[in-house]
């Protein structure tokens, strides 16, 4: 029985966050600090003919202006984040990474051309307007299919085509089962772009101290350690001369995992050049142009089934839009590929990825990271098949789930981390059944819906299952220290962007050391505190960092017991840790506090015995063999207003199984946030590009994110199937809330409007788009 793990403990960090006592990058103020503003291209595709910065340089208060030319030898395209998969043959991959400032050609609207450093942001922005830049517009590559036509304009002139990568993964023999199938559902599914729209935009403060030869960088990154290592390498410094701090960050969602953004490399570089602290804070409009986006794909997908609704095979040939560069390799489309079979036992699979360069903003993972697209494809095809075969949506899912005895289930293809795609554990049916019960599926379909329909209300129900591959390697680490005041300090490398790390990680330590969660101080995202690790992404915090923290807490527990055993004169197995004390089980007054023990372990006089270490401290690491796969079911009841096409969500249910739950309160918060984002993805948020590559809704007035009125109360039910891959048995949950929502919306909308002969095979929708889909459709009844 656990005392701390699994408890609904209020978040340690909230008092600070809610009272404005938490440090964000923009809070950093350093005397003598200068401010940066960027000149960004208005064109999506253009040749840079000339640039004249003389007027900007003369403006009072301007300290420096840099163009690509001014960077000289230091101008280099950014390093790729991930490499193409080495284990699969016949992979084509052309790596083209983002540049710090445009040198020859602009490849997307908003690409930075020059940067002004001035005494204030106001002056810097005015000086940006002084720069005269001559751009020769080129035809923009926007449409994914046209981009691959032989006569298309090229995004990268040195390549033969706009193909960035292609890759095929095969399991079984799809073409054979297609012949044998009773039914083949074949559709083209379009998925468009969205933004992460984090509440806090990106920001960087870089401070080069010329006297101590030390660079400190505050960065809204999800990956402070790789940023430090990369900066040191690029700037010719030792890693110990660079400290990167990712303080509190107002939402990551993936784009802050991108390494390196042009600004991330430039601001530190300029700080060293000028020996001055420099601040750059992205504004909201810049965020639409300068921060990465995701999701655009076109799928030509098929599902072959028997008359009974058993899936024989799936084929999915798709185009993935990577934007102007492809620093993130194949991560997103590989995730799509790995989720296009959903939670189903599918023996035959053919999937072909074609990644396309376009004159659009770079695509890198956003919460879900290719998974929502894969789930959308498989769930939509299954829904259409169910309709065709006259099988209930719940029943057809049950008939196809991977049975619980088949785990670990090896898909025999590779995942985004180039590891084998193996589902470690799962039990899908109870999650589906629990969701159906919580939403009142049978009762709604039998009684409520007919009654409401008779009254002329357009109500619909949807239920969709999903999986989420989480917790990938390579590794994370942590250091746990007992301090002389009895408090515990935990340092880990992953950054924090609101996930509740200060509490859930503290619970893992509290479980081993028997201290109150409030007495555990967590330090994250500061390379001076811990400098081994990768970052916060792929729903891996609780799995990879969580288990590293668990391992270090266990090691410290061992040290505590050993020392306490000597001092208290009792065998280790008779000692217990509780309330910050170590005591002998049967003799409670015979005890010593952890603080006293820590002092004794670090004496000022005497000798620490050879072979032992001072203090009560331990560092440990954890790296899983492969990722753990979470799963669940979402269900919703919605009502459509046929006049405005506005949707009201009447009830929303999530049943989530992410293995061992560390803190249900935090887990539910993650799910609520994920669903809110998913609702945006499904019905509101779409980035609209014009045919010349212009982003036409780059403001929160036109790009609509769901607000409190669009997000319903969400009922969360939990199931726990622990992962066998790690000691805590945990799986990730960060992206789960987002993944199935577009597929769920589609099913529920179709169910709400049975009188129309229409199919939803695209996302995001909007009231306007739904109107277009229904307009001109004759009512079938």
């Amino acid at each position: 029985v656990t005392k701390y793990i699994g408890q609904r403990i209020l978040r340690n960090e909230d008092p600070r966050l809610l009272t404005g006592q938490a440090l964000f990058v923009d809070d950093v103020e350093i005397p003598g600090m200068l401010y940066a503003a960027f000149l960004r291209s208005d064109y999506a595709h253009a040749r840079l003919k000339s640039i004249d910065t003389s007027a900007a340089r003369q403006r009072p208060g301007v300290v420096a202006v840099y163009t690509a030319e001014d960077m000289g030898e230091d101008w280099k395209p950014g390093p790729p984040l991930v490499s193409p998969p080495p284990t699969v043959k016949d992979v084509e991959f052309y790596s083209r990474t983002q540049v710090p400032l445009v040198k020859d050609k602009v490849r997307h609207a908003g690409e930075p051309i020059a940067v002004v450093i001035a005494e204030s942001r106001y002056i810097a922005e005015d000086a940006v307007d002084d720069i005269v830049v001559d751009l020769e517009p080129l035809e923009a590559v926007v449409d994914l299919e046209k981009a691959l036509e032989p006569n298309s304009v090229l995004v990268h002139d040195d390549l033969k085509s706009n193909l960035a990568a292609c890759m095929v993964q095969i399991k079984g023999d799809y073409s054979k089962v297609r012949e044998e199938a009773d039914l083949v559902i074949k559709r083209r599914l379009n998925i468009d772009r969205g933004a992460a729209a984090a509440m806090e935009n990106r920001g960087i403060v870089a401070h080069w101290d010329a006297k101590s030869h030390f660079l400190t960088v505050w960065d809204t990154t999800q990956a402070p350690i790789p940023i430090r290592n990369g900066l040191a390498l690029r700037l010719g410094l030792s890693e110990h001369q660079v400290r990167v701090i990712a303080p509190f960050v107002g939402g990551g969602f993936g784009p802050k995992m991108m390494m390196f953004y042009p600004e991330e490399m430039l601001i530190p570089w300029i700080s060293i050049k000028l020996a001055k602290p420099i601040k750059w804070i992205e504004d909201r409009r810049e965020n639409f142009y300068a921060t990465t986006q995701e999701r655009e794909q076109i799928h030509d997908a098929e599902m072959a089934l028997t008359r009974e609704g058993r899936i024989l095979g799936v084929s999915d040939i798709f185009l993935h839009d990577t934007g102007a560069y492809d620093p993130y390799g194949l991560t997103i489309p590989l995730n799509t590929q790995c989720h296009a079979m959903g939670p189903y036992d599918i023996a035959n699979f053919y999937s072909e990825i074609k990644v396309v360069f376009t004159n659009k903003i770079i695509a890198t993972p956003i919460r879900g990271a290719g998974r929502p697209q894969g789930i959308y494809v498989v769930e939509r095809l299954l829904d259409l098949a169910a309709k065709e075969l006259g099988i209930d949506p719940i029943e057809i899912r049950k008939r196809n789930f991977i049975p619980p005895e088949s785990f670990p289930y090896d898909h025999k293809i590779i995942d985004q981390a180039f590891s084998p795609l193996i589902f470690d554990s799962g039990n899908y049916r109870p999650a589906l059944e629990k969701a159906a019960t919580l939403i009142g599926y049978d009762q709604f379909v039998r009684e409520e819906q007919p009654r409401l329909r008779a009254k002329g209300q357009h109500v619909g129900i949807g239920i969709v299952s999903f999986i989420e591959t989480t917790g990938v390697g390579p590794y994370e680490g942590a250091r746990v220290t007992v301090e002389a005041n009895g408090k515990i300090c935990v340092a880990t490398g992953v950054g924090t962007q609101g996930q509740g790390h200060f509490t859930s990680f503290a619970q893992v330590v509290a479980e081993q050391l028997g201290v109150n969660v409030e007495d555990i101080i967590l330090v994250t995202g500061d390379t001076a505190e811990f400098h081994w690790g990768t970052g916060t992404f792929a729903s891996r915090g609780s799995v990879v960092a969580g288990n590293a923290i668990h391992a270090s807490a266990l090691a410290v527990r061992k040290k505590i017991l050993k020392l306490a055993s000597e001092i208290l004169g009792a065998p280790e197995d008779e000692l217990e840790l509780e309330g910050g004390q170590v005591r002998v089980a049967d003799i409670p007054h015979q005890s010593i506090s952890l603080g006293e023990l820590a002092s004794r372990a670090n004496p000022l006089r005497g000798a620490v015995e050879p072979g032992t270490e001072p203090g009560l401290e331990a560092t440990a690491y954890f790296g899983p063999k492969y990722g753990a796969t979470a799963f669940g079911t979402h269900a919703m009841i919605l009502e459509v207003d046929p006049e405005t096409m506005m949707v009201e969500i009447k009830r929303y249910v999530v049943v989530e199984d992410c293995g061992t739950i560390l803190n249900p309160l935090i887990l539910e918060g993650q799910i609520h946030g994920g669903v809110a984002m998913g609702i945006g993805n499904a019905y509101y948020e779409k980035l609209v590009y014009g045919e010349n590559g212009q982003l036409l809704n780059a403001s929160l007035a036109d790009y609509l994110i769901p607000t409190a009125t669009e997000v319903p109360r969400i009922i969360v039910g939990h199931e726990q199937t622990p992962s066998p891959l790690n000691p805590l048995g945990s799986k990730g949950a960060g992206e789960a809330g987002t993944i199935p929502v577009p597929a769920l919306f589609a099913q529920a909308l179709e169910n709400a409007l049975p009188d129309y002969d229409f199919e939803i095979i695209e996302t995001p929708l909007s009231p306007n788009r739904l109107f277009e889909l229904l307009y001109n459709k004759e009512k079938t009844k």
Partner: protein
Amino acid sequence: VKLEGEYKFNGPREEVWKLVRDPEVLASALPGTKSLEHVGENEYKGEMNVRIGPVSGLFSGRLVVSNEVPPESCTLTVEGKGSPGFANGTGNVILSDLGDGTTLMKYVGEMQIGGKLASVGQRLFDTASKSMIRQGLESFNSALQARMAAKSGEAAFDYKPASESKFIAAIAKDMAGEMLSSKRVIWIAIAIVVILVIIAAIWISTGAGG
């Protein structure tokens, strides 16, 4: 963005043509125009203040007249850029003599817009540009009347190009009109008046003015 339309001038084709080719009239017809100078035979350079919804700023640009067939038709090519972004376009203008002393102008053009103009002003651009063209042409027509009156020695026709603020106000009205049906406009107007009255009443009763 596609721009297309027609406009009837109360005057003969030759006069309309002369007017169109007169940079001063051109500049005055589009308020916000800071300058327009003749830099080549068929080329003008100028600066213009533009405001479309939340996007505003100074545009500097070039206007080239080509394919001239006086007094029938010509092609106008515009390239403008400034802090709000850029707007490039080409349009064909055709003047036909309607035989009754009036002239019909038809225009067809394509505009490419970018920067803030596209990303923030996009949804207003269509209405705003139509409104600007309509007002510009109305100004033209007034100028035409003034000119013809002067020629025939009649009482001088009072021609005053619209001021920039009037011009902007008219665009705003056009945009609002397009977004709201007239019925709703009335209700909104009533609502605003009611609110103003209430605010005034509170203001007076609390003596906040003192």
